């Protein structure tokens, strides 16, 4: 038996084992699973993205000051009760405040041990707060995700790289339903007198670009309290610091026109491997991003 045959058999066995595991069967993880979060075991390390500050919290940029802690939710609705998740009662819930343009972000912070392929998979859905007896399909502005990455301290090409993708659902009442990405952040500002801590709000409403052929009509059920879970997969190569794949439900998107926010490496973020999820409301109503489960995997 050749080494190629052995490796093909090993891969077939790996896939077979994944397929019979109810927790993993709906994912397509790379060979090593970094984390598998189903939110029936707590928040699984998804905390709030707190902004940088020095001396007083007043120094925090306003974009970050609005953030608050994510919740574990059964998607309880006033007229239908708990919706529940896909495989447990609970989902992670990221809720904005009821103010046009308000955002909230949850983050998971890791570092990596090898610059190679990583894969982020999730089942998600979104809805506005159901405080009107209307469809409300244009109330959520966007939901999305980003990675915050930096090369190792010995890497000559180390940069801070932040791939961003959002589903622009609507703005100013127009139902856009398209994926967008971002290449530029805002200017870095020192947040205190010691000039040790910098901050930049990379989720500002400016600078979003349409992903080519990125229009997608997701399942948005007929009243604000009916939800359907959607699948999302984003592949990124930490070696080349380039995105290699993006899928949402039945659509695979061409990323040849995609790029990330790229900024010089920072002095204290080596091997950073952060994942963020965010929600943004377009109107004076809370927007909710629910995440049933997340599988983060890598080839290392």
């Amino acid at each position: 038996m050749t080494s190629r045959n052995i490796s093909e058999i090993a891969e077939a066995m790996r896939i077979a084992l994944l397929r019979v595991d109810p927790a993993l069967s709906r994912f397509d993880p790379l060979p090593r699973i970094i984390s598998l979060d189903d939110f029936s075991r707590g928040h699984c390390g998804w905390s709030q993205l707190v902004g940088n500050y020095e001396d007083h919290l007043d120094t925090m940029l306003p974009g970050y000051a609005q953030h608050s802690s994510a919740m574990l939710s059964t998607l309880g609705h006033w007229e239908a009760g708990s919706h529940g998740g896909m495989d447990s009662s609970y989902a992670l819930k990221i809720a904005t405040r009821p103010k046009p343009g308000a955002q909230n972000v949850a983050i998971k912070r890791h570092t990596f041990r090898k610059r190679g392929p990583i894969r982020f998979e999730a089942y998600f859905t979104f809805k506005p707060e159901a405080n009107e007896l209307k469809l409300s399909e244009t109330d959520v502005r966007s939901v999305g995700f980003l990675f915050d990455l930096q090369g190792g301290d010995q890497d000559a090409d180390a940069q801070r790289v932040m791939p961003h993708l959002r589903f622009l659902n609507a703005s100013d009442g127009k139902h856009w339903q398209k994926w967008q990405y971002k290449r530029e952040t805002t200017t870095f500002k020192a947040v205190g007198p010691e000039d040790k801590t910098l901050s930049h709000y990379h989720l500002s409403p400016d600078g979003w670009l349409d992903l080519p052929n990125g229009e997608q009509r997701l399942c948005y059920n007929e009243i604000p309290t009916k939800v359907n879970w959607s699948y999302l997969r984003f592949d990124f190569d930490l070696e080349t610091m380039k995105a290699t794949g993006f899928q949402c439900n039945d659509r695979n998107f061409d990323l040849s026109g995609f790029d990330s926010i790229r900024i010089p490496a920072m002095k204290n973020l080596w091997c950073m491997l952060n994942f963020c999820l965010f929600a943004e409301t377009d109107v004076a109503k809370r927007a909710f991003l629910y995440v049933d489960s997340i599988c983060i995997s890598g080839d290392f």
Partner: protein
Amino acid sequence: MLPENITAVIARNERWTGEAACEPYEAGWAREAVFFVRAINPPIGPAPMAWVEISPDGMRWIREGAEFRMPSERDGIACARIAHFGNWLRVATKFEDGAECTVLVTLHLKA
């Protein structure tokens, strides 16, 4: 397996005046909850009573019964313990005209 618990920051450096409340928080998985309200800056004016509210849907609120006085000095901390609350929780208060408090509201939940 150890029981779940979490510290959630519900309001951070928020200046409360008039009728004020923190954002709703879902905590149906928890059997007990403790709210802490800390004054980040020196409060101005009389420190009013605050109270815990519960809700059937996260949108309509009624008082749960627990009450506490808002902190009256910088870094003063008030708290409320709750053990029977369904799913939704928040704290609310009402300041006299001209009174205010900049708060850090944390919620500590245990399964």
